[in-house]
């Protein structure tokens, strides 16, 4: 277990933030941590039932929610977008 900094831009926010997660965290947990830190601070709460996904910046496909950071082959400060699934 080790701290792992990620660059995160949550949908609606004006820019990227550096969010520290644990490398044992899953993508779903990363989304949760980011929501905790940014929603109601810079982004209004999402409507109930909203599904958020994460993807590497510029990628088309979302990351698997169960993927662990340690297994994701990320470089420290990897840039992830967290967005509302349509």
């Amino acid at each position, binding site marked *: 277990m080790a701290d792992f*900094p990620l*660059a995160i831009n949550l949908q*609606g*926010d004006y*820019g990227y933030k*550096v969010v520290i997660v644990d490398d044992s965290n899953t993508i779903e947990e990363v989304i949760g941590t980011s929501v905790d830190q940014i929603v109601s*601070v810079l*982004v209004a709460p999402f409507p109930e039932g909203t599904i958020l996904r994460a993807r590497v910046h510029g990628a088309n496909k979302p990351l698997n929610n169960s993927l662990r950071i340690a297994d994701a082959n990320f*470089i*420290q400060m990897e840039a992830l977008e967290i967005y509302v699934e349509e």
Partner: protein
Amino acid sequence: MALLKMEEWYDLARETNWTPSYVSEDELYPEPMSNNYDIPLETWETFDEPYKVTYRDYVKAQRDKDVGAYSVKAALARSDFFKNASPHWKALLALHFSAVCWAEFHSASSFARMTRFSRSPGMRNMATFGTLDEIRHGQIQIYFAYEFLKHDAVFDWCHKSSKTENWIIISVRHALDDIAHTRDATSAAIMLNMGLELAFTNLQFVALSADAAKCGDHTFATMLQSIQSDEARHAQVGEPVVRIMVENGKKKEAQQLVEIAFWRIWKQFSALSGIGMDYYTPLEHRENSLKEFMEEWVIGQFGRTVEALGLDLPWYWDILKQDISNFHHANQIGVYVYRATEWWRPIASTSPAEREWLEEKYPGWNETYGKCWDVISQNIRNGDYEKTVPVAPPLICNMCGLEVTGVAGDKWRAVNHHVDIGNRRYHFCSEPCKWIFELEPSRYKGHKSIIDRLFDGTIGPEPDDFYNYMGQSPAERGTDGYEYQWVDGYDEVDDDQSLRATG
């Protein structure tokens, strides 16, 4: 004895050059200090400045300017202008003086290098005036700012800021080190004079001077005018240098120097002038927006100058046209929410009336950046002040040192560019910032942003470690300039709406 007329001796004097005999030309002008771009000395000697001035005339003109500026200052020193100025204007003055005073000394250093190492005697002559100008600009602004120190300790940072590792100062210093401090005399003439002075000083000195006069701050207005009249003269050192390079097969090199410098300085002015014009200028005195000034003076006038000199418009011109509507709005949110990391008292400047102005000048502002301000203002109205400060720090661009931002709200667009070297990821806020880095990675890769320093252990883990590193005691951490009272306007709007609803 009758004096010769200037036109009878000026050209002879300015064209008189050394013919080195005890040292070689390379020893007299070592390349790291004086790149000749493989253009022979006799060609550099054709440098012909468009604005000609003698030392006698220069001294007289400068003396008259100083007398004018200091007289206005003395006359107004007894007034209570500063005490009665709004937090908007106080924030603007603090930002301007603490970012610009010492930057003038960077320019003095750069001009001094041109004075010694320029190949052309005419250029050395003009650069001598430029050096004196910049020393004067540094001194007059620090002196004028000193007047405010008795009213507000924030102005200590006009002198102190350059010696700190505050994140904003790191950003400004990195840009100026790159274009002014660490370039040879020829390159610096193009980068400083064309990329900074000719392109951008109108924004901060002419536009701001007009705003200052409208606000009744005649001391500041007079001082800015006095400075800009120098800038307009000495900025012209760069134009003949570009012309010589273009005419001698070095257009590509000149083009690249302009493109690097222009983008680096645009990012600085986007934050400084952008926030100053669109947020810190009191609403009742605002006329044109940053976007409008940029379109007329930079995209228009500077663009035409670039083409008239035989260069092309920078490759990123279309990116710039988008950036003038976005970057500073995003950065204003960051400057406000991370206000404790700044030494002045930032203001939100997003009351209902101010939002109307922003929406008029930047259609779509309310559904983009305004969405973040909806959340911030609601938290303040609810008394949730802690929620107005994000736990997560911002990602900082490894070139410009400002936040990596995109478009917020309903038209959300994440923007990020990166380069990996070894195990380190370098993030950039824009394609041009990344392009500059990739031109010369060895020049830039060792620089660390404040966030890099936070995570590599340079800065300790405790919150106070961060502020101590940036030179900010508890009393020097920014707080809301209006103590949150700006949200009262929202209550009035709500009351009006509820009255209308109930008839």
